[in-house]
């Protein structure tokens, strides 16, 4: 690639294409949440209309994503870590930056922990946490040392595979699908659906990386396109998931399961094909998605440290590793893991739902003032 250059810290830096940015966003969003999303959304909505709530949540996410994209366009070549201080001043900037670094670090840890919980329950019963975690962390580090370009190229391989296999497995659920489980449509009106939107829109967290990725884009002006496409792919996958899982297991059946999506795949067997059971396919791509979410979050946490405290990127990547490793072990039981997930969601809501709007308004106001003066 023409843009390849060795930056400070030795990581190769390439400019990303619009498609690559969209792919990174999609991969980052698709992560641990997909296995529990049908339950989480059905809990809040309480009716079979949870999938509509997911649709609305996705639209909210697209709006928020576009706001962030606009904000980033105003500061070409800079990441949020760098330009946020210019908008709010160094004092608030010193608060905002570290919170975001922590947010990404916690997200990375949360993804790895979810991986451990699910694989420990269903795949690798008896494999200790340190073994799963450390292998995962090291392989992730290896990828991240290749820089954003390497990450993007790997993700470009993972995403089509994910979409294909995931849709294949979920659509096989049609063998146990019963449309009556999804009816009545809007039986209790639109209100329950709206109640769920806050929760479902949190399922789309991940698109916020656009405020960091824009700085590395070949065509930063196309970042709105990238973020919209990046959200649209998970949106379709999420709707299909919630639709199929509730259609197969019913609302009541979904509510009782920790990972309803996985249980849906475990609820049917198709004979006559090479395989009879398909949950392992689902788990394989799910683990790939966890891996991509983890590396993205980890990379941007390290990037924040590097840019805020002027350290080499490589040092930050290595230095962050033990902290994330410890963070992974912090939740003591499964409930704590879900609570951690809720907390990350809440932080995301303020960090990326509210603050960007304020910053965008401040930016526009300042530039108009600036324009008036000259």
């Amino acid at each position, binding site marked *: 690639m023409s843009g390849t250059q060795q930056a400070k810290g030795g990581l190769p830096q390439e400019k990303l294409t619009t498609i690559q940015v969209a792919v990174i966003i999609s991969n980052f969003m698709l992560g641990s949440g997909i296995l529990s999303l049908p339950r989480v959304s059905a809990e809040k909505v309480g009716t079979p209309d949870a999938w509509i709530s997911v649709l609305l949540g996705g639209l909210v996410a697209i709006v928020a994503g576009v706001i962030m994209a606009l904000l980033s366009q105003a500061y070409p070549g800079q990441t949020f870590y760098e330009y946020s201080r210019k908008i709010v001043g160094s004092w608030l900037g010193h608060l905002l930056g570290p919170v975001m670094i922590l947010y990404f670090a916690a997200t990375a840890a949360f993804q790895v922990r979810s991986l451990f919980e699910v694989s420990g329950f269903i795949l690798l019963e*008896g*494999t200790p946490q340190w073994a799963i975690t450390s292998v995962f962390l090291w392989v992730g580090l290896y990828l991240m040392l290749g820089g954003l370009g390497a990450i993007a190229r790997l993700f470009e391989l993972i995403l089509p595979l994910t979409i294909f296999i995931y849709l294949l497995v979920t659509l096989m659920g049609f063998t146990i699908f019963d449309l009556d489980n999804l009816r009545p449509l809007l*039986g*209790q009106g639109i209100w329950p659906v709206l109640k769920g939107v806050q929760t479902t829109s949190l399922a789309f967290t991940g698109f916020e990386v656009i405020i960091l990725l824009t700085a590395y884009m070949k065509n930063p002006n196309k970042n709105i396109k990238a973020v919209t496409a990046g959200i649209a792919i998970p949106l379709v996958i999420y709707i299909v998931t919630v639709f199929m899982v509730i259609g*197969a297991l*019913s609302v009541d059946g*979904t509510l009782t399961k920790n990972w309803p999506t996985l249980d849906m795949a475990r*609820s049917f067997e198709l004979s006559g094909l090479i395989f009879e059971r398909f949950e392992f396919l689902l788990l394989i791509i799910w683990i790939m998605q966890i891996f991509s979410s983890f590396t993205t979050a980890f990379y941007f946490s390290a990037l924040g440290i590097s840019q805020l405290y002027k350290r080499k990127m490589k040092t930050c990547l290595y230095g962050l590793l033990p902290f994330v490793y410890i963070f992974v072990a912090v939740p003591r039981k499964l409930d704590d893991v879900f609570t951690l997930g809720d907390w990350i969601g809440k932080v995301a809501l303020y960090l990326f739902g509210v603050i960007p709007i304020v910053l965008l308004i401040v930016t526009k106001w300042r530039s108009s003032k600036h324009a008036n003066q000259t």
Partner: protein
Amino acid sequence: MRIRHKAKRSLLIAICALALPLQTGCWSKDEIEDQSIYVGMGLDPASETKLEKTFRKEGDDYRKRKLLTYTLQIINVQSESQHGGGQAPVSEKPYFNISETGDSMFQLIREFSARMERPVIGHHLKVIVINEKLSRKYSMNELLDFFLRDNEIRPSCLVLISKGSARGTMVAKDNSIIPSFRLTGLVDNRYRSLKILEPMTLSKLEGKIYGKQSYLLQNVISAEGEVKFSGGAVIKGKTQKLQGLLTEEETIGCVWLTGKGQGGLVKSYHEDNHQPIVYEVKSMKSKIDAKVAGDEISFHVSIKSKGRLTEEWLNNNEPIDPAFKKQAEAGSQKEVRRLTNLALKKLQKQYGTDVLGFGKQLSIQHPRKWEKIKDRWEEMFPEIPITVSIDMEITEYGAKITR
């Protein structure tokens, strides 16, 4: 500089060497030959086997209430491999059953670890048969909790009720039959008989248990190592206990009302000379219309079916005329009406449980009304008027000529 390079290199080599133990393959592998795979399970009221009694005399005792006896059907690996290899008749059964009496299912399963060298694993559990008496006493959530929680057992596992002993359904006369596979295989014959209900798997059950809905389970009877799917078992929503059984005819009536049958037959007798006429079901559909007029709720079920005249003992090998067709259709419709009436009467008047999804249809068609009455639905159900219209059409007459 070179020294640093060397140090770096040896560090890398050391890390690689340390990483090697992680590459040795599966961490907690279990060889399949060393496992006992159980494929079926029967739950009966407590009745200790002879072996257990002897064991107890020898000192096998721990704190437990004797609530149930369960039978685990384990694939006999040795005999299976013989079966695959040689042409000679199999002398050994391809399975064996073992029983334990106690209360906690999990404890009972783990008891086998003290009895057999190969630990039992549940990844391939296909069917759970629950004795009728047991399910009258204990609710489905009590009996099935372990299965729904366990990480080995798949939610696709089938659940059946047995009128007699559940252990009896786990026995086969023939050495080539694995009784659990026979039970799950019977479900695949739904396209041939209306006596076989839609299979109820753990995953479907879980939603119904949590939602406190009523439902039907397939009943299976057994004698002398043979089994038959015969009738249904009605589980009451609120208690999740067995309310009562349905006869085979009532069960067929239920299948007609839900329209979920895939194939089967209707046998009626000719009005004049009482000879059988058999209508083979090619398709069936049913539509439940919920009607709400003020406080009055009523249902209309319209059943539509197309079929083939497969057997009749009347005509002297002459072509069938339109009048006979009308008569045969009318006779079949009358028979279906008899069956649906039987089913509705039993379900409404005797059991007072809505297992056919009338409530669900009401909730779909009149969600607001449903919200108001859903808590007392089953008390109202016996008094709800339900009308049925049946439309059956003979579209084929087999290989014989018609006029």
